[in-house]
């Protein structure tokens, strides 16, 4: 029985080792792309790396790295996690402005705000206002995923991606325009 236990333990160790190796291979091949997706949403490389690592850790805790759906899961989780952070950031900014209206009026120079990446800020705000699916379609496609990869990541047929994308592009432009006229 002792020998059986040793064999079982050895087999278990081998299995854990091969699973760790599979995870490392997945991480190496997909990390840059996952960070790229998060950065496309957040326009902040450091926060994008935080999101990517959070996504990989969540994946590793529950899924097998050799699963066929692994890349699609990672892309989708990166887009949604980054978009959630973007929405949280926007809510936080609104709350902070609402709590200190006088101070905000005194210290924020509108001209300077325009100078500091105004376009990028407006685009991210508009992205945060879009519904989750159109926002994710835009971000994944802009990150270089093919129609088939975007479809797999979002659980949508490849044939629908073109239509979703065109609608999302129009919606984003509309939101950006709305943001500038507010």
């Amino acid at each position, binding site marked *: 029985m002792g020998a059986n236990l040793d064999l079982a333990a050895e087999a278990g160790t081998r299995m854990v080792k091969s699973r760790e190796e599979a995870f490392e291979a997945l991480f190496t091949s997909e990390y*840059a792309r996952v960070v790229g997706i998060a950065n496309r949403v957040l326009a902040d490389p450091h926060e994008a790396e935080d999101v990517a690592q959070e996504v990989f*850790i*969540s994946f590793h805790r529950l899924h097998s790295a050799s*699963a066929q759906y692994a890349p699609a899961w990672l892309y989708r989780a990166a887009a949604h*996690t980054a978009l959630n952070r973007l929405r949280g950031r926007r809510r936080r900014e609104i709350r902070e402005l609402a709590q200190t209206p006088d101070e905000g009026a005194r210290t924020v120079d509108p001209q300077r705000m325009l100078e500091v990446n105004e376009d990028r800020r407006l685009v991210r705000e508009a992205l945060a206002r879009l519904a989750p699916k159109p926002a994710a379609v835009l971000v994944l496609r802009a990150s270089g995923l093919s129609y088939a990869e975007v479809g797999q990541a979002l659980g949508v047929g490849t044939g629908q991606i073109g239509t979703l994308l065109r609608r999302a592009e129009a919606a984003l432009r509309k939101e950006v325009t709305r943001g500038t006229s507010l």
Partner: protein
Amino acid sequence: MVDDPDALGGSDRRHYATCEDCRARYAGLADDARATATMLAVPDLKVDVGAAFTRVQSAPEARPRFGFSLPIFRPVSRPMFAGVVATVAIAALVVTAFANILPVFQPKTVEPVPITVGDLETLSQLSEYGTLTWSKQPKPEIVLSAAEAEKVSGLHVPVVGTLPAGVSTTVTYAAMPQAVAVFTFDADKAAAAAVKSGKALPALPANMNGATLTVTVGPAVLEVFGNLQNGASSASEINLPQLVVAASTAPNVTSTQVTAKQLENYLLSVPGLSPQLAATLRSIEDPTTTLLIPVPIQYATSTKVQVQGVQGVALGDNTGAGSAVIWIKNGTVYGVLGLLKQSQVLSVANQLS
């Protein structure tokens, strides 16, 4: 067509060349696409994949959780679940007391044990009397198919017969290889825990210091029926399953140093234990072959049932909204749990093959 200028076939291309509406519409779409590409452009990114992998590996959250992270229990019932887990651990300790007579505990049948919330609180304090370490970490994972679940666990995945009406045919499989935990009694920690609790807990017998209990659990497989990830992107968003079927190799417990009588007497001397629990623990006929199923008497009822030709325990919560049946056959513990009537759960259990 915006992304691929060659997407149009012959007749469509001829129509497009002469249709003003289509050309105007395309111009608008192409303009949106160009504008979006510009708006979402970001500077090129350089990442250090090696350094990032080291950070991920050293993150404490990267370690597997204790158990499956599926929403089998609603948040409100989690404290109760934590209590049940603690009680199962303590039940294993009780059984282990007898395991010293026969060095290996191999349960062949199940027995309900009534417990109260007070019992849970009392018994959970005992976990502070030593150190729990995993010599083989539990590594539960969600897999894609029954075949993969069998590969990970080495167990046959039970095949469900007819599903009750309303239960989704979408199945999520989870599997866990064998895990081994070692609990080492520590007199210093026990003394500190007794002081901290402010109660006069009995002192640990001298020869229990350093004694170990080795608990082997799994391998195990889980089949979860229901559309868990319907539109969700994280575990916290997934829906409640309708039916869960689980199979696990029966737990195996070995112990060193502690005599059966010592451990039994010690556990029964802990103040706060309800008379029902103490009486049940004393009355178990053959503890070396009995797996104790703790039943929180305020929340659930239990009855003995015949399932798959052996005796099992059927559990139901008092609201009638959910029920479960647990049994042991050929060294494997089976469980069927669902938001269903007891008769439906029993029918699923009897049809497993």
